[in-house]
């Protein structure tokens, strides 16, 4: 009994000490102050130095929270109870959020730095006129591969993956649209195809790929490819950049049949409290110098044209990550296909996963 009491006493005492310490730290960092801005972003997706720079420049305290998937983020914002001022969803999420009325229109007069964005990345189908969003980072979906591990072969197209010599050599990302999209592209269909016949065709073609597929994984795909667990991976370009930085035997290619063009954009959710501050933050990130610094830290491709002047040449001239669009095939942005069609995509993907056993 004595032991019990002493344990609980110790625990309660320790937790109150910790609580006090935490409150103290919060105070010194200014998090409990009045002038705050809550930013909701992917993990490790911004240079922390930039946050401090923003805070110094504007006197606004940034409360930073992170999420690991668009769906989780949307679920949180939709439910209410949160007060995020700025969020960074991916493009397909933005169309969903627009539909559900979760976003506040941006006041472009407060975003003078918008002019620095490459016009090719503005006014896209998921947000015409950039009413609600501003590009943050962008990229493609493609194939990362290790030529050494596949006998010096070069890969240039999706269809190359079906090569019989590539048994058990491929890692796929755990994304229904990416994988089904790959199937569709390999049959020269659009990534946004809603024709069920075409989708079935794609799925059957993917089933034929299964002997070559080693595993379907998530973010750990980077680690696995760097460790040379498999020769080939279907990944997002940002991941590819990091993988190649760690292991330069690997190369990245955007398949010639076409692929997905993705964007992560800054938006202001309807639950925002500090809309003025949100605009200041977005404008701050659009500043070319800041965008360049961010791109250096995060390693993804920036949509900010002027920022390219501040980045090293070997980065901006790397056609794999800053392709010239004329030469690259059909790059499509994911359109919002509606709940039912998306559910169908996911069912097919689930079937594909189960087919592998």
């Amino acid at each position, binding site marked *: 009994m004595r032991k019990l009491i002493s344990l609980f006493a110790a625990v309660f005492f320790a937790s109150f000490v910790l609580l006090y310490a935490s409150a103290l730290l919060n105070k010194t960092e200014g998090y409990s102050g009045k002038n705050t801005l809550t930013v909701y972003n992917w993990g490790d997706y911004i240079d922390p130095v930039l946050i401090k720079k923003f805070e110094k420049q504007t006197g606004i305290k940034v409360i930073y929270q992170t999420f690991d998937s668009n769906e989780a983020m949307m679920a949180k914002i939709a439910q209410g109870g949160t007060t995020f001022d700025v969020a960074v969803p991916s493009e397909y999420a933005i169309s969903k959020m627009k539909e559900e009325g979760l976003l506040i229109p941006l006041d472009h007069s407060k975003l003078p730095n918008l002019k620095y964005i490459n016009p090719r990345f503005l006014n896209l189908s998921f947000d015409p006129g950039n009413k609600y969003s501003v590009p943050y980072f962008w990229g493609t979906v493609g194939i990362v591969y290790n030529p050494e591990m596949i006998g010096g072969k070069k890969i240039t197209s999706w269809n190359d993956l079906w090569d019989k010599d590539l048994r058990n050599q491929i890692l796929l990302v755990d994304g229904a649209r990416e994988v089904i999209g790959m199937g569709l592209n390999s049959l020269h269909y659009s990534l946004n195809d809603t024709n069920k016949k075409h989708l079935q065709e794609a799925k059957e073609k993917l089933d034929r790929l299964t002997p070559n597929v080693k595993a379907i994984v998530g*973010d750990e795909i980077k680690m696995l490819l760097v460790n040379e667990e498999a020769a080939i991976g279907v990944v997002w370009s940002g991941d590819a950049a*990091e993988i190649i930085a760690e292991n330069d035997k690997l190369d990245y290619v955007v398949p010639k049949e076409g692929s997905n063009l993705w964007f992560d954009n800054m938006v202001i959710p309807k639950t925002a409290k500090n809309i003025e501050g949100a605009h200041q933050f977005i404008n701050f990130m659009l500043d070319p110098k800041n965008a360049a610094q961010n791109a250096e830290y995060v390693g993804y491709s920036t949509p900010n044209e002027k920022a390219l002047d501040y980045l090293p040449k070997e980065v901006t001239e790397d056609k794999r990550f800053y392709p010239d669009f004329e030469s690259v095939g059909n790059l499509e942005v994911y359109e919002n296909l509606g709940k039912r069609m998306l559910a169908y995509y996911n069912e097919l993907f689930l079937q594909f996963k189960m087919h592998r056993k």
Partner: protein
Amino acid sequence: MRSNKKWATVYLVFVFLILYTPIIYLIYYSFNSGGMMHDFQHFTLKWYQEVLHDTRLWIIVLNTLTIALLSAAISTILGVIGALAIYYVKKRHMKQLLLTLNNVLIVSPDVIIGASFLILFTIIGIQLGFTSVLLSHIAFSVPIVVLMVLPKLQEMSPTLIDAARDLGANQWDVLTKVILPFITPGIFAGFFMALTYSLDDFAVTFFVTGNGFSTLSVEIYSRARQGISLSINALSTLLFLFTVVLVIGYYFISQKSSTLYGMRGRRK
């Protein structure tokens, strides 16, 4: 008999090694100057420096520990009450019903728990942040405490209670002097399991948190997309070593103090 002891030790050492291999792996790479847990380049302390300067991360760590300790403590108390409640129920069907209800949270995927708690809190109007996370952690830890305490209650011979009663003990004495001491190992087990559930939880916390309140798990999982930097390894190493020191320290102090007071005898 002698050879049995040898095998026992070998087996235990083997199990220990397997348990600790991933941990040692993590610690090893926390000193890697390369960016990933692969290809050790050269020894560096830069990740530790990065950790020490990251105030936001430390606030998160403090939050995590506070929630873990508080939720484990409170859920243990609730769990003991629950186990006692189930133990005293006489009708078998009622017992099974309570047990089934108890286990619902253990079998439910975190996503569902998270989502339904979020809806619950929104309806009641509890603000998302420390309170909602604490309540959720208490909620999903209670079942495991019940599971750990119940067997001890069942092992307890009811004649013990009768004997105590005969000797004139009242309700409170029976509880504090007979039952609780007997089930203490179960209580400790429940407490530590609750601590584990809380420290490891990601999905539920993610759904019910807000207002800048975050735990270590949420932070780590959020970084997975970008690649978990080795500063997390460094942080985990620090926390781990701290806990080891704490555990060993606490153990030897309690050993010392009980021999001092001469209370220890063979408790069996």
